[in-house]
């Protein structure tokens, strides 16, 4: 208790020197939390968007379906199993097709999804037939890359189940904006019944998106259940890589802050030799002096946390609600990322950062303080540089 009182007295008594140190350290707190919060926010958003637009409560894949093998795609569909028809689902039929925007040839995936589905956020309610035209919806990336607009007609060619080529005109009924690239780029969404009719695969689907947990994880012959963990594995991998990058930034910021404290403590020892000698002469043990200096350094981080809270909480709250607009076009990045990222500040992040900074600050204060124990008190009293 006495050491804490003295350390606090020394810190507050040092005035500007302390406050400069505290302010620099408080920047580190706020920047580390903001940066980590931004990455966490990105991760949370990416997961949330993928679940909302593509995954829901998991998917049942036809046993032949392999999203990375285009050669087996035409054989990867089957009747929608009865076990699932009673639940909330969004069956999707996938086949390869070709479009000819502006005279160019481009391979696409034709995806049939029920127009009245409520499982995914894809705006399928626009897939209502008018005047016998087949309506489609596409994502904004797809539209931008192919210079397509709502109301445009597009020639689509595909093979039916017998391998026979067929083609028709489709009308773009809507363009939707999504942050999930696998729902957007190279995908054309049609009403499931239309695609089933086009491919002569009535009542069939390639995969079935589970709309509720009650139908997730069932064992169904000919269909493999893919859990959220499986479907988000690639995203988790990207997040992991980002986290490594984030950790490097975290460590760099931490090192900068620690350098400031270490520097101040080293300077303190040289500047305050006479004071240290006086402490010893007045009856402090070497251990008490080391403890006092270590505490002083550690308390810097406590004061910095308080200062950081004063301006950091409103600032971080503000960024949480306004988000951080990315300064470049993120559409082509190929990963689920929105134009505005809303940072996510979890309690774990805040408490963890505070603890890490405090422990590290205390440790780097201890290192120079330990030097004190080797100081000759008779020279220290005179303030002789050793």
């Amino acid at each position, binding site marked *: 208790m*006495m050491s804490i*009182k*003295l350390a606090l*007295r*020394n810190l*507050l*008594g*040092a*005035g500007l020197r302390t406050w400069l140190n505290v302010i620099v350290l408080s920047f580190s707190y706020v920047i580390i939390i903001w940066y980590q919060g931004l990455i966490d926010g990105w991760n949370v958003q990416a997961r949330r968007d993928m679940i909302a637009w593509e995954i829901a409560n998991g998917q049942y894949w036809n046993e032949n379906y392999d999203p990375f093998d285009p050669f087996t795609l035409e054989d990867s569909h089957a009747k929608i199993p009865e076990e699932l028809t009673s639940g909330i689902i969004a069956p999707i039929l996938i086949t390869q097709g070709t479009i000819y925007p502006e005279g160019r040839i481009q391979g696409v995936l034709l995806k049939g999804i029920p127009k009245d589905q409520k499982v995914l956020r894809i705006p399928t309610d626009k897939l209502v037939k008018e005047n016998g035209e087949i309506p489609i919806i596409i994502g904004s990336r797809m539209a931008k890359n192919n210079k397509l607009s709502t109301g445009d007609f597009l020639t689509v060619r595909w093979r039916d189940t017998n391998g026979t080529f067929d083609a028709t005109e489709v009308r773009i009924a809507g363009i939707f904006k999504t942050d999930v690239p696998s729902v957007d780029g190279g995908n054309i969404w049609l009403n499931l019944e239309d695609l089933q009719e086009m491919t002569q695969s009535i009542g069939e689907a390639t995969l079935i998106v589970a709309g509720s947990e009650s139908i997730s994880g069932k064992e169904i012959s000919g269909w493999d259940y893919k859990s959220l963990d499986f479907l988000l594995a690639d995203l988790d991998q990207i997040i992991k890589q980002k986290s490594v990058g984030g950790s490097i930034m975290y460590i760099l910021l931490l090192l900068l802050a620690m350098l400031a404290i270490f520097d101040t403590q080293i300077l303190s020892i040289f500047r305050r030799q*006479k*004071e240290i*000698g*006086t402490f*010893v*002469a*007045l*009856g*402090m*043990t*070497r*251990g*008490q002096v080391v403890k006092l200096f270590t505490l002083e350094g550690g308390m810097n981080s406590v004061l910095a946390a308080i200062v950081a809270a004063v301006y950091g909480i409103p600032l971080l709250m503000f960024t949480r609600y306004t988000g951080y607009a990315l300064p470049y076009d993120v559409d082509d990045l190929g990963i689920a990322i929105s134009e505005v990222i809303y940072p996510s500040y979890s309690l774990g992040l805040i408490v963890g950062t505070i603890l890490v900074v405090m422990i590290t600050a205390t440790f780097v204060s201890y290192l120079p303080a330990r030097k004190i124990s080797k100081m000759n*008190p*008779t020279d220290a*009293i*005179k303030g002789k540089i050793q």
Partner: protein
Amino acid sequence: MEESSIIKIENLVKSFPIGGSFFTALDNINLSFSKGEFSGIVGPSGSGKTTLLNILGSLDVPSEGEAIVLEKKISTLSHKKAAQLRNGHIGFIFQTYNLLPVYTVYENVEFPLLLLKMPSKEREKAVKEAIEWVGLTDKIKSKPAQLSGGESQRVAIARAMVKKPELVLADEPTANLDSENSHHILQTMERLNSELKTTFIFATHDEKVMSYLNRIIRLEDGKVVKDELIGAKIAAS
């Protein structure tokens, strides 16, 4: 140790390594100090006064021989025991005051009592009393930078005296003071010596200080060349 003797020095030698050889700062010193003495170690610069004071204050250890201070053998004291001896029983007054710059007068004087873990009310009373002894009640909230040299040294005296130690070691306490301030602080210390029966040992070459002493030990080249009692000024011992 004699009945009233609080310090006994026997065949004390202190040498420091310089280059490849040793410099003998104190050479075969034999002395004893009684309770309540107001004595001084005098001599020119480099004669070993401060070195002897540092050993008596357990800030340094003899190379040979022994110094027994308040029944503690300095050469065998651990760092912790030496700190306890200084904290509980010895007060220091330095030539350059050595006040803690970020503390107020009150906090500087309070510091030794915090180390002694004295209860807060008792501590407050003792600190105020000590500040009153040296006549600085009106400067209680001032910081050292706001004090004159004389005032700073009076704070240092209050800090040394606040725990009512058996022994006060004062190293050139008047070296940075003018004549008037020197007399003022010497009178203060003389008064405390007679009121509290505290033993004062000075290291000095200041004639003004010598005029107050009741015993003068002259050191030259690390050896005691003269040890005289000034009869009329011998304290109550």
